[in-house]
């Protein structure tokens, strides 16, 4: 009896032991094979986005962060977002070093101000790709500059503003004079003039990409000067809020806010598409340094507010858009700048490279307003 019991016990114990043993062994080997044989072995593709402002700030920060997140999700990248990294301090360096130590291979800089700081690091880490958001100047071969070609849409928004104004005075606000701000202002002005040659185009520099007080002041001044519709160029949507508050119609930037009574349209950027294309880009094999896409690439569009526009306005804006698609050139024909010199003659088109980097003039008909 004893031996039988012993035997039973041993058998039970043996079975449990064997199964556990086999399972553990299987698990170990499976895990190791999986680890070495699978994708896990290759470092997860990771991407970082560096922002100067909090990532949920309305405007570029939020749109860029969201678009980046969507692109990464779609392509299976792991995304690190580092926001509130001050420009012009050591913070950016530290953050980038940390990210590289973490194995990040692509770093996207959302603010143009970072570009010069990062150049050193871009040379130090050739295996890491740096993408700087700056349409104007290219600093280094190691950095790919990306930006959105807004001017086609600015032109369309100018057409809309010209059609929409009752007073014949159209306002515009932008941070400071630079190639990209002048380009957009010029395109806006040409748009307005294409439908309303007699319109006054008032504009004001607000000083910074983000400067709420000055932006508020600019809107107020424009209103005072008689403008009843305006467009703007800024990192945030503070101007739109100010215009809404004051009661001036405006063409919003970044994203349409459908509830707002004075918002007639908005320039919207498909950042998801921008970052998807950038992530897909094999920079080294393609030898590109600049990414600059816009209306024709479906990266930007003018989103018209439903019900805020007259059918005529909508139709004319639509016609202008199809004209662009069928070869109408914005910076073409007879263009005279503020100083009176001719920038383009009849039958000619200003090349994109000039438009992109050498726009150091403003078209005739735009007026800067000064504070009193």
């Amino acid at each position, binding site marked *: 009896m004893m031996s039988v019991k012993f035997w039973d016990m041993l058998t039970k114990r043996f079975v449990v032991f064997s199964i556990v043993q086999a399972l553990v062994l299987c698990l170990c080997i499976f895990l190791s094979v999986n680890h070495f044989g*699978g994708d896990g072995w290759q470092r997860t593709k990771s991407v970082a986005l560096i922002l100067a402002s909090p990532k949920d700030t309305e405007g570029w920060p939020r749109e860029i962060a969201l678009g980046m997140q969507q692109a990464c999700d779609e392509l299976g990248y792991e995304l690190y977002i580092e926001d509130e990294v001050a420009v012009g301090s050591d913070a950016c360096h530290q953050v980038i070093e940390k990210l590289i130590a973490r194995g990040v291979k692509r770093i996207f800089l959302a603010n143009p101000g970072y570009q010069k700081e990062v150049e050193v690091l871009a040379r130090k880490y050739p295996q890491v790709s740096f993408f700087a958001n700056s349409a104007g100047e290219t600093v280094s071969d190691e950095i790919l500059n990306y930006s959105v070609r807004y001017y086609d849409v600015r032109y369309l928004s100018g057409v809309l503003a010209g059609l929409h104004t009752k007073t014949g005075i159209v306002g515009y606000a932008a941070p400071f004079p630079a190639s990209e701000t002048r380009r957009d202002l010029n395109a806006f002005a040409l748009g307005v003039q294409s439908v309303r040659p007699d319109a006054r185009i008032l504009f004001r520099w607000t000083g910074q990409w983000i400067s709420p007080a000055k932006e508020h002041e600019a809107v107020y001044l424009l209103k005072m000067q008689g403008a009843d519709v305006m467009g703007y160029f800024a990192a945030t949507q503070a101007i739109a809020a100010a215009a809404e508050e004051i009661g001036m119609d405006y063409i919003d930037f970044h994203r349409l806010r459908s509830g707002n009574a004075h918002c007639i349209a908005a320039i919207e950027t498909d950042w998801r598409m921008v970052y998807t294309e950038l992530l897909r880009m*094999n920079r080294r094999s393609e030898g590109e340094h600049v990414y600059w896409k816009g209306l024709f690439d479906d990266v930007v569009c003018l989103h018209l507010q439903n019900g805020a526009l007259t059918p005529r306005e909508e139709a004319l804006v639509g016609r202008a858009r199809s004209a662009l698609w069928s070869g109408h050139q914005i910076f*073409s024909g007879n263009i005279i700048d503020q100083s009176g010199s001719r920038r383009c*003659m009849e039958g000619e088109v200003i090349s994109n490279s000039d438009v992109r980097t050498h726009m150091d003039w403003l078209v005739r008909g735009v007026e800067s307003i000064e504070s009193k």
Partner: protein
Amino acid sequence: MNPNDSNEAKDASQRRTLGFAMRMIGQFLIFLLVLFGIGTLLHSKMSDALNVEVEKFVVRQAEQISLTYRELFQNELDLLEKLADVMESGKLSPDDVTAAVIHGEPMAQAGMVDMYGRLVAGTPLPPESKLQMAEALQGRQSIHHYKGVGVVAMVPVKGVQNIRYALYKIYLDQGLQEDYFHLSDKSHEAKVLLYDLNEERVVVPYKGYGENDRFYDPATKLPKGVDQLLSRLENAHGVAIFSPEIDEDYVLFASDIKDTNCAVIGYTEWHSVVDGILHIHMIVLWVFGLLVVLFCVFVLYAFTNKLQAEESKELREARDEALRANRAKSEFLANMSHEIRTPLNAVLGMNEMILREAKGASLQKYAWNVKSAGETLLSLINDILDFSKIESGKMELVDASYSMSSVLNDIYNMVKYKADQKGLEFHIDVMPELPDGFRGDEVRLRQVLVNILNNAVKYTPKGSVTFTIRSALKEFRAGETVMLEFVSKDTGIGIREADKGKLFSQFERLDIKRNRNIEGTGLGLSITVRLVRMMGGTIDVESVYGEGSVFTVRLPLRIENPEPVGDFLARVEEFVRQQNSYRESFVAPGAKVLVVDDNDMNLTVVESLLAKTKVQIDCCMSGRECLAKMRQQHYDIVFLDHMMPEMDGIETLEKAKAMKDSKCLDTPVIALTANAISGVKEMFLSKGFDDYLSKPVDSRALERMVQKYLPAGLVQAVEPQSSSEEENGAAPQAEAKEETAQTEPKETQEAASSSYLIDQEAGLKFCGGTEPMHLRFLAMFCQRKEAVQNKLETAMREENWKDYTTHIHAVKSTSLSIGGTQLSEAAKALEMAGHAYLDGPEEEKERQLSYIREHHAEVMEMYDALIEEAKERFGVEI
């Protein structure tokens, strides 16, 4: 172990072995399965990893090809740009330029448009080309394919300040089939197609691409697998697919070409890519296979070890179990033997009573049988007790001094008796130099020697047994340890060679068929061997089957007194003579003896029995008196009755020993008792007595006792002549008497008892064998009658049953000593009832009392009748 058991054990062991084997195979299979699974997993993982690498490699290849295409296109654009530059400098008109572009190329066309889309020169383009033109006018060079037209390369042409025209060259579709942009022919192992992403058609095929081609899909009229490639291409610049569903041998790849609406799509052979890597794959699988084999070997080895370990574990457990069981058995035996011995002693004791008192010859015979069977049983039980004591380690050797001659003497007597009974000769040969005084365990030595000699006698049907004691040394000194050889040689049945090994094992009895008539437990020799070993000795046996055996026991013994034994045979004879010449063989006028008994008749008996030895005798009737006398003077021997009123013998002795002013501290004290059952001697010895005598006192025993315990100086032998005369006369008489006592007296007793209350024969025996003494005792008995009866009546009246029992006890013993056996018997019954009342269980007390009350008068009557008879028959006068 019966055959069933052994079969079961065999089955169990077979089952166990089978179980082990099954488990082993089971575990082995599990491991093998696991390894197989892992191997498969490894293989598939490696294949996957390999395919991933192949795809990556092919993606790179695709991107490379797309770059090559781009360079190809770039060359065309560069050519156009050069012509544009020439035109800008104003050297050529638009028509000249377009003509220059297509110079020598029949399958190409060219044209130029201005910023309003108006054709300036050459061939017009379809409306789809407007966007390309717009971009060209903004300064971008590009290549685009248009359905039904062909591939269009376009560059801007500058005017005065800015861009004025767009110059383009059309590579017609017909020409693309043969002349332009064919890459696969040039170098690659891959087959490459240029594919229009917008129009979803092949722009530039590789050579041989067509309806019968491997990669042409007739259902869609497109290249094979293009859907999968294009859907993946949305998320990457270059892709590759290796899927057996699409093609088993080829890897598909695609990569878009920058600044065009085209992509390259190609097919490359899987083997051409992985050729070298495949070897690594095979090596890994091969090594894994080897590892599997190695592992199997290891597992087998581990199992074998485990099997062995478990077997030895089982053996160990079985051994422990057996040891435990054996110990339990020994303890049980020890306990049981002890428990059996106690009632057996009682049985034997009672049987002794029966022997003494039984009247019928057949009754006597039965009692004798009981006695002999009982003693055999007792000796067996003692054997078992000894054995189990040894087994359980409880046997301890006592260290005490003893006389070798005494030991030999006892052995001689015992063995000689048995040998005589069987008609065997028994010789003893002791070397004369053998020392007499030794130290050690006398009892165990005796046991060893008696065992081997008894064995010799037992297994010797005829012939002789010779016992030899010798030593290599001739001179002995006190304190030395000497190796003595005890040799028992017989002419018995001998031992078979094959059985010698079993000889000393417990419970084994050899040659059972032949020895079935010989009783024994089979423990004797086993005990002997163990005892010998305990004493540090050895035991050997030599034997010739059928002729006899020689047992040699060698024991180291410590000498205490080197005085030699001398001629042992002579001593034995002397001793025997001493035994026989018990009567008046000595006088001891200087000796003083104290006899203590509450019964004056007993005192008188002792006194008269010792009268001839001239010993000075003092008598007293109670313990207290005895103590007083001991204080007064020294006695050489004290006889102390056991049953006395007030203070019994044991108590008296205790007090005497504790008494500091006693003059008899060294005096031997001998107990007198009427309860002569076995075991009593041990009881008395344990209480401090030196020996005991049973009442009624046998004169011979009394004299022997006195002679034994008196200091040698006080004893004087009577003159040899007279003693030898006496001896010659008395010894045969005594022997004859003893012989008859066993047979005849019973009949006479029986006859006598029918008519007389007084058995003269019996009376004479207890009174020194002389009639005058008997008469004297009778007279004394009669005189005491009144007093005794009064005491009994008083006790009866006062219901003092303790006193009553003591008095009736006295009646019992005194009446027996004058031959009043019937009265003694009746008195004894009353005494026993009295004891039962005093000590027995509560519920029976009433019954005992009523027995006493009923029979008391009867006994008194018998008492009276006896006195009357004495008066009439022997003329006793009161």
